[in-house]
């Protein structure tokens, strides 16, 4: 038992890139869950009170619904998501050969819909894309995050990391200034988390709806008075990829509930 653990630790050490100053050591990483109130945790933990589960249920219905001129449902190709989609979201953003760059789970769903279902595109942050994404990601609940392991992604992880470290906007702040250096402190009374993206799409009480990691990143950028990247922009995908690789090994929680 002990030597199994030793192997696991050795494997983690071997695959973890060297930390830059200010970065969080693997064993000190904490999900946003540990920063929220007991009430919010209880809401997430109980599927009957977690509002994100309504989107998961909607997503399940959409999974089986035939759409587009191909008249195909997701299930017609992928079968039962409970088995076929297990652990899939934990690997996203993933490298897409045809594009030569990483894409998010939402972009994968959009591509599938365009190419295989030949259906009208679902806009970013629309209820249906969030529902499908939540349903697929929910099949990874409890799975360790492995996104970024693909060696073809290393340049994009590095791009995401440099964006995370880059000061920007009129307030001239980088993600790292708050989320590596000042987590557990309070910004206007609200706790600052480590920005570990373990539960996306998340139900955010402030939004009163489910939202993607891109939405969260864009609102942080607006907060530092920077020009937010458009949904689907390569920079946002690189940031998402870096954040997921930074959370490597942490369990997925989708749908998480956050204030």
């Amino acid at each position, binding site marked *: 038992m002990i030597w199994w653990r030793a192997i696991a630790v050795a494997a983690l050490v071997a695959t973890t890139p060297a930390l830059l100053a200010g970065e969080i050591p693997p064993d000190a990483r904490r999900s946003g869950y540990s920063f929220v109130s007991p009430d919010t945790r209880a809401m997430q933990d109980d599927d009957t009170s977690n509002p994100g589960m309504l989107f998961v249920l909607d997503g399940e219905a959409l999974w089986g619904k035939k759409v587009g001129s191909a008249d195909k449902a997701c299930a017609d190709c992928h079968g039962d998501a409970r088995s076929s989609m297990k652990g899939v979201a934990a690997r996203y953003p993933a490298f897409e050969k045809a594009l030569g760059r990483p894409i998010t789970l939402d972009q994968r769903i959009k591509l599938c819909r365009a190419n295989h279902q030949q259906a009208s595109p679902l806009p970013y942050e629309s209820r249906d894309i969030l529902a499908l994404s939540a349903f697929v990601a929910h099949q990874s609940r409890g799975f360790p995050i492995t996104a970024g392991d693909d060696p073809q992604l290393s340049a994009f992880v590095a791009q995401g990391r440099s964006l995370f470290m880059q000061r920007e*906007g009129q307030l*001239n702040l980088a993600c790292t*200034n708050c989320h590596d250096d*000042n987590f557990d402190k309070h910004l*206007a*009374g609200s706790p*600052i988390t480590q920005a570990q993206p373990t539960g996306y799409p998340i139900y955010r009480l402030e939004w009163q709806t489910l939202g993607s990691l891109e939405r969260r990143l864009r609102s942080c950028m607006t907060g530092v008075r920077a*020009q937010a990247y458009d949904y689907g922009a390569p920079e946002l995908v690189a940031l998402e990829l870096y954040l997921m690789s930074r959370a490597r090994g942490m369990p997925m929680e989708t749908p998480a509930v956050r204030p």
Partner: protein
Amino acid sequence: MARSKVYIAVLLASVIHVANAGADELVPYEITGDGITTSLTGAPGDVARGRTLVLARTTTCILCHSGPFPETRFQGDLAPDLTGAGNRWTVSQLRLRLVDASRFNPDTIMPSYYRNKGFVRVGRNYAGNPILSAAEIEDIVAYLATLRD
């Protein structure tokens, strides 16, 4: 014909001037020791207005700082409590710390409140403008100077 060209040139110049007003023109200031001794507006700030500004979320002060503000619980703890700021700093020191705190520590998370250049990807609504106007800096400096233990 020549005359109308001149008119157009003058008109264009004035349009450009209006577009840039408040954008590219910051009041020049002189640093003496570790402060700015002269008011950016040439007049002392207004203490009451300064307090209102510090408490307004748009100035961003209390996102990071706390202080003697019993009426709000939405205060930050990323930066020192402002209580006693008037004991710790002179008016001149406070003014430069608001204008450009990065001068003292390039790694500081305190924004430079009176700077409008050298930033990355500034939002469209903010581009070319400092976070605070000269008058707002002076009001806040005047208020902070009154915070004595």
